Structure formats: structure tokens, C-alpha cells
């Protein structure tokens, strides 16, 4: 766990505040998740507008990265945000934060609008579903600190690793396509991706 060294060096008051912070970590959601929960519970339009101002440009950039034209990006973005409003009751802060949830909606709407395909998903009420026999007590719980740590770790990645991450996660390319696009070997793509994911995973698990 980060901070243990500091704690020992700076005495009991800091140790106490570290403990307080640790307990807060379990509970506090990031800002956008709080807004989305307000939309979900109170149908709060002001919160929705704030989400819209934040996500509209990011979604447009995301969709254009995936190859959509300006006009299609706008259309799909509007559709995604309409769904955020309409489907807010389905948002579960215990399994995802706002950005993760909206990322999955945008991914699916892009596949639907642009690729004219559908994307198959697990039915969590499937009688054949095998449940996790030993779920961690707060598995999937996304605290503000965890999501901040992940974002800080992404920002600190070397350029070459960050580029591959964007091509794969945002543009939605397979590893072989990334290798071709960047004129590097498939093994280089694999090793850069592995290095990047190991760093991010450490951050996600440390919180």
C-alpha cells in the first residue's frame, strides 16, 4: 500500500488522517459519478447538463477516432447522451463509474449505428450463468481515488505505450492492425501493451 513509509516517518496525526482517508476511499465516488447518481435518483437536469458539457466533446472526439464523420459523431453522441438520461436508472455505481458506463454505451451505439451490427453481452439473469464463488467484498467498487490513480498512471505512460493504448481501446483496433499502422512488429505491440497494462493494473490494485 502506498503511503505506509510516509506514515511511519511523520507520526501519529498523519497516521490518523491516513486512516480517515482510507475509509473515505471506500465510499466516495468521483464527481461525474455523483452527478450521474443525481440524474438517476432525482432526474436532476442541472446535473445532466453538467455531464453533457463534460462528455459531449469527449464523445465526439472518441467517435471521430473510431472513424466516424463529424456529422455521424454528433448524431451518435446525441444518441449516447439521450440514453444516459433515459437509462440512468440502470446505472450501478457499485460496478462502474460514470466514465466507464458512458464508454460502454458509446462503444455499443457506435457498433449499432456505424457498423450496423450488434454486440452480444452476458445476460446476468441467465439460468446458465456461473457466479463468482468468492467475490471480493468491494470488487468493482470505484472510488474517486482509484479512478484518479488510474488516470494519473495513464498520463504518466511513455508516449509509445499511451499511443498503443489509445489505438486499441479508443479506436478499437486489433493488435495486428496496430502493428501494421505503426510499422512495428506484433511482438512490439504486445510487449508495449503488456507493460502499459501492468502499470495500470498495479495502480488499480493499490487502491
Amino acid at each position, binding site marked *: 500500500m502506498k503511503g505506509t513509509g510516509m506514515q511511519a516517518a511523520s507520526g501519529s496525526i498523519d497516521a490518523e488522517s491516513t486512516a480517515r482517508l482510507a475509509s473515505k476511499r471506500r465510499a466516495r465516488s468521483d464527481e461525474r459519478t455523483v452527478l450521474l447518481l443525481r440524474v438517476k435518483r432525482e432526474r436532476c437536469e442541472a446535473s*445532466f*447538463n453538467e455531464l*453533457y458539457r463534460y*462528455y*459531449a466533446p*469527449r*464523445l*465526439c472526439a472518441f467517435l471521430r477516432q473510431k472513424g466516424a464523420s*463529424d456529422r455521424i459523431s*454528433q448524431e451518435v453522441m*446525441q*444518441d449516447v*447522451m*439521450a*440514453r444516459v*438520461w*433515459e*437509462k440512468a436508472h440502470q446505472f450501478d455505481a457499485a*460496478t462502474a*463509474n*460514470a*466514465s*466507464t458506463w*458512458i*464508454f*460502454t454505451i*458509446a*462503444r*455499443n451505439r457506435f*457498433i449499432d449505428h456505424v457498423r450496423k*451490427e*450488434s*454486440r*452480444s*453481452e*452476458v*445476460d446476468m439473469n*441467465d439460468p*446458465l*450463468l*456461473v457466479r*463468482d*464463488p468468492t*467475490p471480493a467484498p468491494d*470488487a*468493482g467498487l470505484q472510488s474517486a481515488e482509484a*479512478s484518479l490513480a*488510474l*488516470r494519473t498512471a*495513464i*498520463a504518466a505512460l511513455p508516449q509509445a505505450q499511451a499511443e498503443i*493504448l489509445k489505438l*486499441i*481501446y*479508443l479506436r*478499437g483496433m*486489433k*493488435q495486428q492492425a496496430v502493428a501494421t499502422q505503426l510499422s512495428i512488429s506484433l511482438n512490439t505491440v*504486445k510487449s508495449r501493451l503488456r507493460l502499459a497494462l501492468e502499470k495500470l493494473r498495479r495502480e*488499480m490494485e493499490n487502491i
Partner: protein
Amino acid sequence: MARYHPSDDWLVAYASGAVDEQTSVLIATHLTYCPECREEVARHEEIGGALLDVLGAGDAGDAPDEAPNITAPDSNMVPQDEDAPLPKGSLADIAPTPLLKYIYDLTGKTDLEQLSWTFYGVGIDRAVLVDGPEGPLVRLLKAQPGAKFPHHRHLSEELTVVIQGAYKDNTGRYDVGDVQCVSMEAAHQPIVEEGDVCIALVVSERPTVPTNFLARVAQRLLDA
């Protein structure tokens, strides 16, 4: 619980939306049986969400600044999800929902017996679900206990997920929920275990070719 999983490359591609529809069906079928891979996919989606934040407004150009009427109570922008219950056929007992829905959308059937099964080998039938000239090739295989597949070579990467029974080949034993990924040019000979009829979904870009000359001739006659 499943012991053979899709590679990380496939799970990332599933999370990012890069896989085609038939592969998403195969992976979602595996995920139904595999809580570990569901957790992996959730992690990849979390990274996707973080990257969405990192993208920033700087790259966005002329995105509009205010929400157009989305919150109006009479907003009809989002169609309701049509989730009509599927007819209850024999396939429902063994096929996870993603696969059941996919087969129903393609064939209008949820009964295993009503699919168009054709002879594929001694004790082995197959039902082709999708077969275009440029691929992909999607089929269900149904093999009797003890059945031996002809030894064959792959012209493209192929993914298989088992939904009933089990088979073995030189790489391992594949049971319900397990995914086998066979790479291009690899050759193998699956043998079905005694016990249940083995049923599996197989997705590839190109068909397989028997390694044996006579079997190749026989397949050409069968496919003609």
C-alpha cells in the same frame, strides 16, 4: 468453471468493441460461464472509461455546448429495448442467452432438433449458421460420444466454445464453457469424450481442410 479462456487480445477487443458480431457471441457465451473473464472485461472497460476522460475537450473541435431537449419528458430519442422472451426450445437448456438469441435471430428456431443439420463425419453433424463467400463461417457442431473428427488443418484462426459435453485433442481437454483458439495453419484431431453428446459453437474466417487426401476429396464432394 471454465479452464481455457480467450486470449487477452480477444478480451480487450471484446471490451473495446473491436470484435465482429459472431465473435462477440462466442466470447459472451464463454463469459456466461467465466466470472474471471467477466472481471477482466470490466477492468478493460474501466481503462476505456479513463481514456475517454483523458481524451479531453481539446481534441473535440466544435462539439455543442448545451444539451438539446434530451431531458424533455416527451423525448422520443431512445427506442425502448425490445426484449421479447424467446420461445422455449431444447436449445434453451444448453445455450447461454447470447448464443440462444443469436441462433434465434438467424434461424427463427430455439430447438436443437429443428436446425438444419448436415453430415460432417461419422457421428458428427454440423449446422451452418453463417457462411459468406468472404467469411465469416459460423457453425454449431454436434458430435456423438467417442466421435473422432477427421485430422484437419486451419486456413484461418478459429475459436470454439463448448456448450455441452467435452472433447480432447493434443492441446488439452475442452469442457463446457472452455474456449479453444486454434491458430492459422495449425492441425489437430478432436476426439469427443464418452458421456454426453458434444455441442460447440465454432467461428472462423475460412473453413478447415482435412490433412488426408481422400478426406479432402470427400469434403469437396460433401460441400458441392
